[in-house]
């Protein structure tokens, strides 16, 4: 058999293999696309649900915070408040002077 004949024969053997690989690739591509579609749908539902949860949680916590502040305001006198504030400033200065980390907010 000539050299050319050998190449043709090897190609003929490989064609079915290539076809098989091509089919599998095609199948995989379809499956990936399907999965991506599902993920996309899930993500969008989750995003919406997450947004609702964030909104309602923030609202509830703001209400709690306002109630707590009102309670504190009703309980404390202004002289006590001013004293507590001065004390906090002094405590923070001491803390930073002795190597403490600056509070982050």
């Amino acid at each position, binding site marked *: 058999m000539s050299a050319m004949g050998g190449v043709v024969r090897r190609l003929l053997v490989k064609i079915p293999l290539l076809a098989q690989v091509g089919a599998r690739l095609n199948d995989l591509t379809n499956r990936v696309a399907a999965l991506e579609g599902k993920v996309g749908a899930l993500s969008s539902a989750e995003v919406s649900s997450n947004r609702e949860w964030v909104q309602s*949680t923030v609202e509830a916590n703001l209400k709690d915070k306002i109630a707590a502040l009102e309670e504190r305001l009703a309980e404390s006198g202004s002289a006590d408040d001013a004293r507590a504030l001065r004390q906090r400033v002094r405590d923070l200065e001491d803390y930073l002077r002795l190597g403490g980390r600056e509070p982050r907010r």
Partner: protein
Amino acid sequence: MFWRGPDYPKARPLLATAVLRNPKHLVAQWFLFQCELIDGDLSAARERGELLVKLSANNHVMILSWVRALVASGDLDAARAAIAQHLIRVDPTADRRNIGANHFIEAALFELVGQGDVSFETSRAMCRENDVTLIDWSKVEKADEIRAALKDMRAKVRNRDICIFGRGPSIKELEADPGRLHGHDFVPFVLSEYQEVAERVLAKVGKTPGLACMTSQVVVRAYADNLRALHASDDFVALTIPDFLDQQLRNSEEDRELAGQILSDPRRVFSYRCQAELNLPVPCDPLHFPTINTLLHALGLAILLEPRRIFLFGFEGKANAATGEYYYAEDYKASYMGEGWQNRTARWLWWDSFRFNHVAPCFINHLQLLHDVRYPLIYNVCKDSAITCFPRIGLDDYSTLVKENV
């Protein structure tokens, strides 16, 4: 953890054999890495840490492990470079109802390499929206009862100082001069060394514990009579224990009577969730405390009660380099010897403090961000302590601080 148990010395050679047979066995490689790190074989840990990251294709846990080895060996630049090169960050705002381990690891990683601001921002994105906390009490069992209890406890502690007592050798200094505590209005907080602290320190200044944190069934049983007596005292605020211990005590035939006596009043018990080392408190699990050590758990409750300041006494967090001493008082150490704690060696203490120093600031950030409590001013009254994440001060500094008035 096996590296704290009696068979620990056998583990490393076995793991070394396992990874020789299969170098791609990630679990064996990781456990061997942990042995190397805890043993202080840092060059081996660095090499294996890098391998872990390669084998796991940039898994967060493996990145944290490697970075821990780099930081432990003092190579902060390499640690930061490892994060920059390998960490694929997760979006913390994607769905904050389902925050996972990778989120916490990111906060811990940045704290570990000295980038506290980035760590804080990572935590803030998990915990707040428009600077309002996202804490979701509807996900917490008995939330109303817990919130009411915290409110009661806070009324007794808020704006007062808390002193937390450990049993490191530095407590000897305070025992020798308990007058240092005279005139200081503080709430005493004791841990697993209840009796020693109560007798040798607090009794000398006419005080009894106001808060107690215990994390082991053995310890609660050992101090059962003390805990019963505390519950009868008006000065007592609360006992705090992890959820698993709460369940153990309530479900055990042997402890049922004791549980009935010390756990029956919800206003005097604070039970927190405690499932994993790196699970920080998050919106849907706001009372989860990382499983590192009892001090961290005590701090959790202390911070929630908004004290003026918190002082730590007797927390060396390491063994004395010259004597090997790590807990003061042989009788106390001996009492634990029979309970399987004999392997709590100097290296274990090193590991404990090393983790504490980067997990505790993240834990505090999360508590602060979620529970809207003030930034806690925590002092470690032990200048030579290995717990370095709070300012370390001497007894003289403490005396000056508590004598100053506005």
